[in-house]
């Protein structure tokens, strides 16, 4: 009864293809696929295989008047008609809840879809209340959408889709931007909703293991091609699991297990002493009393080891990381260099001039784009060595070496913003490494470096970090990637409720 319309929608694609505006090659071509009403389909493929585009096309977002420009070919039918976003009956939930909430108040946001469909006012509010009850939204209609956690926001987005009475539910990595708690919350909700409804489901998800219970069919598409595997999950994974894993898909039982050099360990490089941090001034959120994110935290970061900061989103992992990297100053207390780093400059890190800081402490941001400052991959890597006063030949040899090591050589003259997600991540790591005196800075701080990466980039990153660790560098990672934690963590620090508590790695 959850999704009011009794039957799910039937989806039919025949010879369907899509080419992004301005690209020479097709993202998908020759897709032949029939999804019967009520089927639960997991759509898989290497990154760049056009899976999101296929979802957008099913939602009717690729028409001539849409923001998504490109050429469509072949036939696409939802219940025997061309996909249309104006008819209702289709719900789309994408990755980032932040970019999907439209209104300032929770109830208004859920009402937005029904309003657009021209539903009568009285019925809108009964739909809104039912949708909010279905997703277990714990607050009232007037609750501010800005004051929700990531998982709560995504539940509200799902409520917004449910209020449109979807018979076809399209989910595009709905838990990718959430921490483990938020992700579990949304997956539990989806499992419950799907057990109560007959809606057809098409799901795109890289972390396959987490959604296996939600689907009964797996369809694999090939970049530039069509469907290459289709069937029950067990069958598809036993026949194609290895090949999919090699293309970067996270297949259950085929997770990468890199062979890594061990951690040499070493003396402390950084020390946080009695650090207290407050959140930065928030624009727009009213009546939020100043609270502390970190309260009197003491922590040392040793050389030749990986220190992992874990804990729920918003608990202060990233704040602690920017403090340790010397990018911001704490409200009280200080972050000071130790050992070899203290011989360069004894002052707290936040007082170091930026140029010196960049030479000795490299930072990799969660969104790689934030740290690009030039218009070409090569310039991005030349930037720091040239500023450090290196000669032209020395700079060139170092840039060449870094581009080889991170597979960026063919992309030397490309604009950083136009790279793919994995390429951007590799470049952002390369820029952090480029500034150091010995081909890498002494301390490396990374914020969710493996977030959203396929298995290939994941493995490369982990191997690179392990190499740097073996060279005796201090590495700090804020992450909730369980696999990263199990492969590459020497000290685990849990950041929650204002505290940072070191846990022994078992």
């Amino acid at each position, binding site marked *: 009864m959850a999704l009011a319309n009794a039957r799910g929608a039937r989806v039919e694609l025949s010879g369907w293809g899509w080419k992004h505006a301005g690209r020479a090659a097709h993202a998908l071509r020759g897709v032949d696929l029939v999804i019967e009403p009520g089927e639960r389909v997991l759509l898989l493929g290497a990154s760049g295989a056009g899976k999101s585009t296929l979802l957008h096309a099913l939602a009717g*977002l690729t028409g001539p008047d849409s923001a998504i420009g490109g050429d469509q070919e072949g036939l696409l039918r939802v219940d025997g008609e061309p996909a249309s976003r104006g008819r209702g009956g289709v719900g*789309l939930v*994408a990755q980032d809840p932040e970019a999907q909430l*439209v209104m*300032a108040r929770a109830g208004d946001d859920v009402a937005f879809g029904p309003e657009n469909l021209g539903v009568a006012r009285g019925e809108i509010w009964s739909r809104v209340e039912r949708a909010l009850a279905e997703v277990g939204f714990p607050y009232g209609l007037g609750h501010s959408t800005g004051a929700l956690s990531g998982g709560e926001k995504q539940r509200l987005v799902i409520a917004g889709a449910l209020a449109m009475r979807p018979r076809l539910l399209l989910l595009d990595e709905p838990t990718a931007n959430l921490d483990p708690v938020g992700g579990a919350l949304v997956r539990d909700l989806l499992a419950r909703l799907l057990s109560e409804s007959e809606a057809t489901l098409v799901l795109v998800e890289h972390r396959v293991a987490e959604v296996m219970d939600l689907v009964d069919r797996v369809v694999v598409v090939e970049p530039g091609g069509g469907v290459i595997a289709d069937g029950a999950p067990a069958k598809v994974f036993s026949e194609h699991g290895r090949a999919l894993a090699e293309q970067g898909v996270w297949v259950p039982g085929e997770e990468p297990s890199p062979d890594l050099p061990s951690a040499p360990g070493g003396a402390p490089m950084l020390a946080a002493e009695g650090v207290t941090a407050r959140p930065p001034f928030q624009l727009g959120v009213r009546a939020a009393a100043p609270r502390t994110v970190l309260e009197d935290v003491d922590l040392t970061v040793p050389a030749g080891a990986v220190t992992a900061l874990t804990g729920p989103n918003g608990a202060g992992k990233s704040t602690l990381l920017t403090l340790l990297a010397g*990018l911001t100053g704490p409200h009280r207390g200080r972050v000071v260099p130790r050992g070899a780093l203290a011989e360069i400059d004894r002052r707290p890190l936040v007082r170091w*001039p930026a140029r010196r800081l960049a030479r000795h402490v490299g930072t990799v941001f969660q969104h790689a784009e934030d740290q690009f400052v030039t218009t070409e991959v090569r310039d991005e890597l030349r*930037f720091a060595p040239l500023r450090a006063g290196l000669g032209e030949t020395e700079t060139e040899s170092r840039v060449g070496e870094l581009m080889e090591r991170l597979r960026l050589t063919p992309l030397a003259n490309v604009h950083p913003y136009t790279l793919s997600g994995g390429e951007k991540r590799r470049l952002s790591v390369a820029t952090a490494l480029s500034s150091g005196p010995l081909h890498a800075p002494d301390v490396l701080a990374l914020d969710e470096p493996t977030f959203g990466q396929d298995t290939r980039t994941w493995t490369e990153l982990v191997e690179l970090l392990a190499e740097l660790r073996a060279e005796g560098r201090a590495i700090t990672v804020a992450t909730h990637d369980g696999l990263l934690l199990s492969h590459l963590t020497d000290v685990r620090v849990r950041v929650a409720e204002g505290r940072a508590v070191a846990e022994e790695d078992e």
Partner: protein
Amino acid sequence: MSEAPRLTGLNPAAKLIAALGIGLGLVPAVDVVTGGIVLAAVLLCVPFSGVDRRTLLILAGPFMLMGLSSAAVNYLYGEQGLEGAIGVAVRLLAIALPGLLAAITSDPTDMADGLVQRLKVPERPAMGVLAALRLVPLLADQWRTITLARRARGLEAGYNPLNVVRLFFGRLFALLVRAIRIGTLLATAMDARAFGTGPRTHARISRWRVADTLLLVGTALLLAVAYTVSARLGTLVLLFS
């Protein structure tokens, strides 16, 4: 309404019309008295605005600065002496204050509802602006991150003003790229929820009450009184006269 009427309880559309009316109505009169009467009347409304004291105090600072600086500039460089300078400042404040009051006493959602349902503003721009407002805190966060990222890359302006300007525009560009990215995602999400596919219904009703009509009548009366008094006193100076 049992308690005293507050500006926050009025329809945003009415407040907007009243503010526009005062603004346009004061354009022809350049003397101190006409503007002064209107400003005094509007200031009398402030205690009834329903805005908390903290917000008022925060906003009063820049507002007074605006008035003082325009008076100072006109006194120093203008041709009408002190009286002319005060006239300019009073007129400026009398035109700006009602708009400010209308803005801070209205919830953005109610404002959009009022604009669409009462003033028949097209849905697309009104809802678009409303959705964009939600992104403001997001972009403020972005700005902070971009600033940190520049330091991480070894970029810091130091005390060179030329560098300060250059780095500022570099950061601005990075923010613009992010804003476009988020804006496109949000537009896609709005499209996915059938936005702009046909006539919309409205979940909330933007009500027009007697108090809203009274506000408009009061505004017209206020302007009439201000002009009449000023003309009787012989102080009225019209633009281009």
